[in-house]
């Protein structure tokens, strides 16, 4: 090895590289099962493929049957995902106030389990807890730094609508055996269906990376993580 090569090797040893995250659990959770035999695709596989094609095709999908089809194909209750060619103008990221975030009023953590009509999944740590009764059964939100966890009862009718721009990446995942989807790489708009059946845009923010999944009849949304591995770890920590 020449002197220059030795200097390069020494340089490599002091390069500042963040510690590699453990990606294995996140990757394994997403791996599709591979089989050697060629089979006729199952109905669900076809549905997912078709839904993915619709999502990738872009353009707003106005017809209600199409919207519901996408919801079912993604396997998530209470969530509908739609891709549009252009999102509304960018909003600022969440400033930290529950009211400004549109997640309701703050309550004491001890009251979290009594505040809504479902069994709440609580994250570890000391989150700020917010509740809002604008959807059937109410929704509860936990704010942990810049990460926001929202829970509501999964229903056959979508309560949350995600509107994706062309660059948003949609990844299907499994979270503790349940269905999930991870939206990353570009902001997307969040809309809610209120108790009165109105579809209302959340004008406060455009969400960043989001993991949505079903557990024990609840739909859980984890927003603001920097990568899927972090979101999955947080999902598993809910109890």
């Amino acid at each position, binding site marked *: 090895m020449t002197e220059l090569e030795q200097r390069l090797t020494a340089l490599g040893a002091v390069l500042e590289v963040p510690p590699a995250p453990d*990606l294995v659990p996140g*990757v394994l959770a997403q791996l599709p099962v591979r089989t050697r035999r060629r089979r006729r695709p199952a109905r669900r596989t076809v549905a997912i493929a078709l839904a993915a094609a619709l999502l990738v095709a872009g353009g707003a999908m106005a017809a209600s049957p199409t919207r519901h089809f996408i919801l079912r194909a993604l396997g998530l209750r209470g969530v509908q995902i739609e891709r549009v060619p252009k999102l509304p103008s960018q909003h600022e990221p969440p400033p930290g106030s529950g009211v400004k975030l549109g997640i309701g009023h703050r309550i004491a953590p001890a009251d979290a389990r009594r505040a809504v009509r479902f069994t709440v999944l609580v994250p570890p740590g000391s989150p700020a807890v917010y509740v809002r009764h604008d959807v059937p059964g109410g929704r509860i939100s936990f704010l942990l730094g810049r990460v926001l966890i929202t829970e509501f009862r999964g229903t056959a009718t979508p309560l949350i609508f995600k509107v994706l721009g062309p660059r948003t990446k949609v990844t299907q995942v499994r979270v503790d055996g349940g269905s999930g989807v991870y939206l*990353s790489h570009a902001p997307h708009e969040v809309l809610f269906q209120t108790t009165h059946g109105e579809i209302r845009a959340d004008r406060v923010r455009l969400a960043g990376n989001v993991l949505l999944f079903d557990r024990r009849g609840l739909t859980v949304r984890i927003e603001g993580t920097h990568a899927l591995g972090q979101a999955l770890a947080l999902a598993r920590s809910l109890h």
Partner: protein
Amino acid sequence: MHAQVTQTSSIAAQSDEGQLIAAAKAGDQRAYGQLLERHQAVAFRAAYLVAGSAADAEDATQDACMKAWLALPRFRPDAPFRPWLVHIAINEARNRRRGASRRATLLLRLGPGPANAGAAPSAEAEAMAAEDRARLSEAVGRLREDDQLVIAARYFLGLSEAETAIALELRPGTVKSRLSRALGRLHTQLEETPT
């Protein structure tokens, strides 16, 4: 004796890796998880140097792991897995860098100097070493991307020439000649830079 033991364990590790690859090719996700545990760190390091952002590197590595799984049925069982995964991670990281309109150059950010197990160097010696590393890093950063990548693969990722060939999709002979030319250009850069 020590060399013999090392060689034996290396052969055992290769054989073990071959078994893991064969099992993963047959659809064994646990075997694939073990392969990733061994090589995700070097894939992430490569992706970080190319993408220039930890979040993009994490996404790029994750996508590389997914794509490798999907492509595994076509992977030769006797081929090394590590440089192949690095190759996919570099491509994914490049795509993200292009998407973010970042310059096609490696991110070479210097951390603190190496911990010295022996006698502590003088403050002056340490300052000179740090200055030398900064000068070298800047000179590498001025090279064209092809040169930076071949240097990074060999000296910053610790890949062999054969592994570098797979990671950068080059013929083994090309790695040798490209590395030689890259080192020559680096030498010129250093000579042209005032100390």
